[in-house]
């Protein structure tokens, strides 16, 4: 292990503990870490921006490929940055209108084809999966129907409709429960990951110098 790596791991461990100090309460160490993180991440994004966008898409397109059309989006891009100057902010609308409008147009047929139709197709397909499969398919049909009823705002939730929407709510709750369980899992995984770093890399690897 090089000196650089050892210093790096100490720094990383220190920063990890700094961020953990938020558990106790919001404090100066945490704020320090948060602001440091902000600066580092913005510095990192600037690099990504430069090397992965400006160089290949603008510089290379014009210098190497002689593709002068790339100048137009670059000018529109500069318009976007003018949003920071209040008197010229209106210029940015042109750029936003261009891409937000265009993507709205792209989205309609693509979302229908890639998501809406396949899901609808799968919901409506005839059952042919044997006894248990058909039962499951029925449950899915029921679930989709009742959930849509729950989010249907043109009917009062009374009597039959109320009952159906309550079934829908129950489906939603089971699904949210699943997502709840999974979210808990995710957060704990992150904690486990941090502890793996602290224990394996820092305490065992650097302080006790065991393993590699």
């Amino acid at each position, binding site marked *: 292990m090089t000196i650089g790596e050892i210093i790096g791991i100490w720094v990383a461990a220190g920063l990890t503990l700094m961020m953990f100090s938020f558990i106790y309460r919001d404090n100066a160490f945490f704020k320090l870490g948060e602001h440091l993180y902000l600066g580092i991440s913005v510095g990192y994004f600037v690099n990504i921006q430069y090397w992965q966008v400006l160089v290949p898409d603008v510089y290379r397109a014009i210098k190497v490929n002689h593709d002068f059309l790339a100048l137009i989006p670059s000018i529109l891009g500069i318009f976007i940055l003018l949003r920071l100057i209040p008197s010229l902010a209106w210029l940015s609308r042109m750029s936003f209108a261009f891409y937000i409008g265009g993507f709205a147009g792209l989205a309609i047929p693509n979302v229908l084809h890639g998501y809406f139709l396949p899901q609808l197709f799968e919901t409506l397909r005839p059952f042919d999966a044997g006894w248990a499969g058909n039962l499951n398919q029925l449950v899915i049909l029921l679930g989709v129907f009742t959930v849509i009823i729950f989010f249907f705002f043109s009917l009062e939730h009374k009597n039959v409709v109320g009952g159906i929407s309550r079934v829908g709510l129950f489906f939603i709750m089971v699904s949210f429960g699943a997502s709840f369980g*999974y979210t808990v899992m995710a957060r704990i995984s992150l904690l486990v*990951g941090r*502890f793996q770093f602290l224990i394996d890399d820092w305490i065992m690897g650097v302080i006790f110098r065991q393993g590699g």
Partner: protein
Amino acid sequence: MDFVNTILNLDRRVIYTIVGLLVAIPLIWPFSLPVIPTPETRGIYNAMDALPPGSHVMIAADFDPASKPELLPMLEALLAHCFIKDLKPHLLTLWPSGPGLAQQAIERQAEKYGKESGTDWCFLGFRYGTVAVILGMTSSITDTFVTDFYGKATSSMPIYERVSDIADMDYLVDIAAGATVEYWVVYAAEPEGVPMGASCTAVSATSYYPLLQAGQITGLSGGMKGTAEYEVLLREEYGQSFNIPTGDATKGMDAQSAVHVFIVLSIIIANICYFISLRREREERRKA
């Protein structure tokens, strides 16, 4: 104060300490619970394993360090699988903070299996635009990523001699910490007819089950558990011959299990106490 009130007013610090210990202890003294792969994860593994050597696989590493423990080992396992099976991975990321981790992963695996950039694999790097990038690649990969991450022109790479766009890929995998799976399905996998697998953080796993149900993705790996399952599948089959060490996600499963059990028990106990105290209140009110 009796038990019920003690539980209901338990100090936060006690709980924090228990959680900290439950994570730390299994990491220091592991008890190696068996990880049994689910059909969802097998869906990705089997699809990858069935590809003939020389097939092209596109892997999108759409995550950042915030989900490193969940997804980075998955990326490494997938890349290792590719290199073991002689598949050609095309790695890219749609997340601006993604390239750093992806670079580490692919360079580590490529070095281990002795694979060449530009011939056996390609790390395309990052471009802004998510949907714009995917749509661009459905028409041409080398026009969308004119250069790879290292600034080398992609059009002159041998790996792009036979493939030009996403339709030429044999499999797609999105390793996603956000909503990119949707975009990959809508703009790439469905219209181009390329089979796809999704690996996501546990937070968003539930929202992709309809896609799995409808066969729009062949498999789904959710969070660190899914990753651990993939590691286990890979190790079971190739661990001996390729000297694959136990993965980080597999190692973390003991701690994960311990904390889960604790949280579930705590919810149950706290709710029981809550109902007891509710009843007591009601009784007291009746007396008064």
